[in-house]
């Protein structure tokens, strides 16, 4: 019985935008239900829910494992994992409440893999539409005012690395050094930050 209550509490915290409470409460909800709550709340507009969902997808390695089933090159895997996060966040509004989150994410990841493989084949000059969602968000962050606003609304933890990467154009290692964080942490924060920007501006994959 308490499990259901925890889920309800988590929902309330998400709706209130209370990140601290939400982070604490989610521990008490079993993963399937937790992800379902996060995705449903994300679909109804909670950016906090999207943040937590992408964070969990990243931390659990779920998306990475899915992508590694069909791609071998680690840097390609990195790219497509990021693309998937951005797509998940950007198209969260289309998440059907009844679908299982992992199934929905799986389908998105597969589409991003196929996109990646198609892009890899076209030797032609890349145009904006040929970029993956993650690269597109990255270039939008650098170029567009509305998106810049979205970046400003990011939690500081993500805002700094995203700005340094997409606006200042620094590489991961330099950013890591400047912020005193590990390269892995910085990569992950940029991936999540971009995904949240996508959620804020409603950029579907």
């Amino acid at each position, binding site marked *: 019985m308490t499990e259901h209550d925890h889920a309800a509490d988590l929902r309330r915290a998400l709706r209130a935008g209370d990140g601290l409470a939400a982070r604490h409460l989610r521990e008490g909800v079993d993963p399937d239900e937790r992800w379902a709550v996060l995705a449903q709340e994300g679909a109804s507009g909670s950016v906090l829910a999207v943040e937590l969902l992408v964070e969990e997808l990243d931390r659990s390695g779920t998306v990475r494992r*899915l992508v590694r*089933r069909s791609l*071998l090159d680690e840097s390609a895997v990195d790219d497509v994992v990021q693309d998937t996060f951005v797509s998940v966040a950007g198209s969260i509004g289309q998440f059907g409440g009844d679908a299982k989150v992992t*199934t929905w994410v*799986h389908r998105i990841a597969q589409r991003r893999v196929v996109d990646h493989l198609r892009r*890899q084949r076209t030797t032609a000059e890349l145009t904006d539409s040929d970029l993956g969602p993650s690269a597109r968000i990255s270039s939008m962050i650098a170029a567009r005012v509305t998106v810049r606003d979205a970046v400003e609304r990011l939690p500081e933890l993500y805002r700094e690395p995203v700005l340094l990467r997409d606006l200042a154009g620094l590489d991961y290692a330099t950013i890591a050094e400047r912020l005193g964080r590990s390269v892995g942490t910085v990569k992950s924060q940029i991936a999540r930050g971009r995904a949240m920007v996508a959620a804020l501006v409603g950029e579907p994959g």
Partner: protein
Amino acid sequence: MSEPALGRYRLLSVLGVGSFATVHRARDDRLESDVVVKVLAENHSLNLEIRERFIAEGRSLRRVVSPHVVTVHDIGESERGQPYLVLSLADRGTLAARVRELRSAGWTATADDVLAVARALAAALSAVHAAQLVHRDLSPENVLLTSVAGLERGDAPRAEATGGLVRADERLVLADLGLCKDLALSSGLTVAGGTTGFRPPEQRDAGVVDMRADLWALSALVRWLAADAALPEELAVVLGRSLADDPERRHPDVRAWLTDVERALAPQPVGSDPGDAATSGGRDGGTSDDGAAHPPVRRLRRARVLTALGALVLVLALGVTVGLLVARSSGPGDATATARIAISGPVQAQVGVPVTFEADVDGATTWVWTLPSGEFVPDAESVTVTASAPEAARVVLSALDDAGRELRTEHGFRVTQ
């Protein structure tokens, strides 16, 4: 550069072209050795179902450790995104070709020929099954001969050399798994997996196939090899058991099969029926026991190899146990004290429309899916199945918990037009 290459492998010649992959002989300049490079066809490289299986086959095959199974050296991707596997090269052709050639000169198999093949393939299949895989396409075309050039001294004694079928400097190697056939099966391109004449009855239709399917094919292969040979009638009885339509009536595993085949071809004197631990050891050593023609000599040699093989025996016995994971059709439940498994997914599907099933695994470290095609998919969080005919089908999920206890659950679904 003049020759086509994939990564560091220079492609020399095309050995074969299938509907899903092209197989090249290639040169690895760094290791200065010739290898086989199997490349997924470009048009299938964008099909994720096929692509994932191709890569999974490489990863699965890599887990199979046996001198009698082709080795995966590497996996890579072409610039066009086509995955490829780099495999060891078998340079002496197929068992099918060798037997054809010998038969045209009037040869028939001796007991030693049969034992050499039976032991090598039993060792190969034990290793495959220990990796929780089913080969599914064992046939004379898929058993290769390779020269060993006296380089591998740590290997089993050159005992399978009988001067006849397998020569002194050769070894039998099982070729890669039946991936392409599996693919063809589940994509509805052909009616069934396996090679005609060596295809177990349960593989003719969609249904759950386990490692006893390989026992059927192995028996069919040995029967084919022994055709017209003057061999004890007992052999036909033993092979007949594992050629039963009902998998439950076959031998429980490769080890039991080999024990019976050896007994049929080299009967033990009455009253000296071997004690379990000791002789099963010699048998599990597979190729190490040379199956010399005279029983007394044979027994002496066996006693000697026993000690040396102690460790190997243990490993193989362990392997057989793990293999059982996929062998049982009833017994274990979906939960143990520390683990729980379940399958979630639709109960209805339409022909030609992919459906996805997910593993809910809690507390188990490794698991394996059995698809309606009979294909095994280890450790995947979800599997996607496309039915080719309206019928009742099921996916099965088996797992081991941390204490090595077995779990099993299945999920039925109805396929409609």
